[in-house]
């Protein structure tokens, strides 16, 4: 029997993998993908609870998050493209002109 908490555990793992990706990878594209994973973990929680309560609010909210994620990605990729033009690399740690 699959319980609510199974879904929540999957979501938590997904979320932490996403966070790990951000902390671990230097390729900006993969960092963005990891952020997508984090957002999707949130979605899974929404949908799981929506089923749990028998109310569809959660699904609507998840819908919004999907749209938001798409919006973020489009801006993020534009930033990456500019960065690549400027520096010829998309290693996020190469961008460290400003510090201190």
């Amino acid at each position, binding site marked *: 029997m699959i319980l609510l908490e199974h879904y929540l555990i999957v979501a938590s793992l997904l979320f932490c993998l996403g966070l790990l990706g951000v902390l671990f990878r230097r390729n900006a594209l993969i960092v963005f993908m990891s*952020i997508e994973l*984090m957002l999707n973990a*949130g979605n899974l*929680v929404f949908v799981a609870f929506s089923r749990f309560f028998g109310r569809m609010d*959660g699904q609507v909210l998840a819908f919004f998050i999907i749209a*938001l994620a798409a919006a*973020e990605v489009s801006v993020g990729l534009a930033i990456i493209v500019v960065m690549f033009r400027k520096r010829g690399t998309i290693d996020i740690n190469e*961008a460290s002109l*400003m510090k201190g």
Partner: protein
Amino acid sequence: MTIATDWNMLLVKGLPFLTLLGMGLLLLVIEVLWWGKDKTIMLILSLLAVAASFYFAWDQWIQNIPWSQQLLVFDRLSYIFDLIFLFCLLITLLISRDHIKREHIERGEYYALLLLATVGMMMMAHAGDLMVLFLGIEVMTIGAYILAGIKKRHSKSNEAALKYFILGGIAAGLMVFGIAFFYGATGSTQLSILNQTFAEVDSSQSVLIFLAVALILVGLCFKIAAVPFHFWSPDVYEGAPTTVTAFMATAIKAAGFVALFRVLFIVISLTHIPWVPLLSTLSIATMTVGNLVALRQTNIKRMLAYSSIAHAGYALVGLAAAAKDNQLSEMALGAIVFYMMAYAVITLGAFAIVVAMGHRGDEAEEISDFAGLGQRHPLLAAAMTVFMIALTGIPPTIGFIGKFYLFASAIEVGLYTLVVIGVLNSVVSAYYYLGVVMTMYFKEGAVYRWPPLAYLLTTSIFLTLLGTLYWGVFPKDLFLMAQESVRQVIF
């Protein structure tokens, strides 16, 4: 589950942001259709929209008829923050024109994005639902990412956008996760419903709630740049175009605080959580780190960035005071609202001067560029001196009054240690603020003829200067306004 919405009412109540929204979209259209090089029309239209919106928000504030549509709330707190955002937007628009011309970023989208980002902030101020709050944050933040990176030719600007985007993305991820758990714990994201269910939160669900609150707080602390979630802000402030920095340092910070208010109003009833130690620690860390690192800065924008971190720390003193006894005290909240206004006025003035210092090809962002300003341009130097004094918190400026109210409200609830640390911090801050004054007056700088300042810049400096001094001497009405605003908050 459907709500009968009085759409007419919503239309009337929502005029402040609807005006901006309409004008923002209109500007996007005009940008496509308008082939002329001169974008002055955009500025004029934006200013008109700001004026109209300001009028509507002011009118609603005066009428004071709290109304809630469940997802959006319309009370004095939200309108006063609308007014703060609009003031920040106004000054930003005024100082923008010359700067963006110099930087070759003068385009209609610039104005449109500023307006639309402000709409996002207003959504945060009016949020009656966590989802609306979050989407407001995202509208604001995505606008800010783009504005920060709009100087495409400059690596720094792009770097700022990238850093802001990645860190903001993480914060958004954390917050979504938090909101999802909130939904799970209470069955809704609507703040007003949460308020009722909270009393019945039993222990099995409480973990979910705590997790949710923690993650949401992380997201909000990121927005106000509280330590240790502040790392983005110096780099982003330095890299972004100065006008955008001014906007971010004031409006976004205020928006972060109003969001924090909205959430705290609800979650403060979670009595299991020791709120005061938490907020005190955040506050101490934030102001201390901000001030100490600001001491070492040579770039004025970076210095102001750290100073803005420190000021968020001072405001958190008020929040800690407000959270005492698990109910938000009016005086402390009023003090924070007032502080946001004070800080916005002063900081915008300081940034206006930074913009005024720049020339084509030389943005004068180093503090050493201010050397000899006292002789080259005494008026500008005098104004900057006033702003620095105000940021330090010395009477008779609004900065002193703001700090005084904050600390007084903390003293009133007995947070003596916090106040001592706060006052000590403001002693430390005197060092770097006066460093700027010293540089202006006591160091020889290049002597060249000063080009006349643009009228819009002069106007904005004059306005902020007037505000800093006038409200420093006669703060009563403004404070009463702040106090009134937190009196009838819709939960």
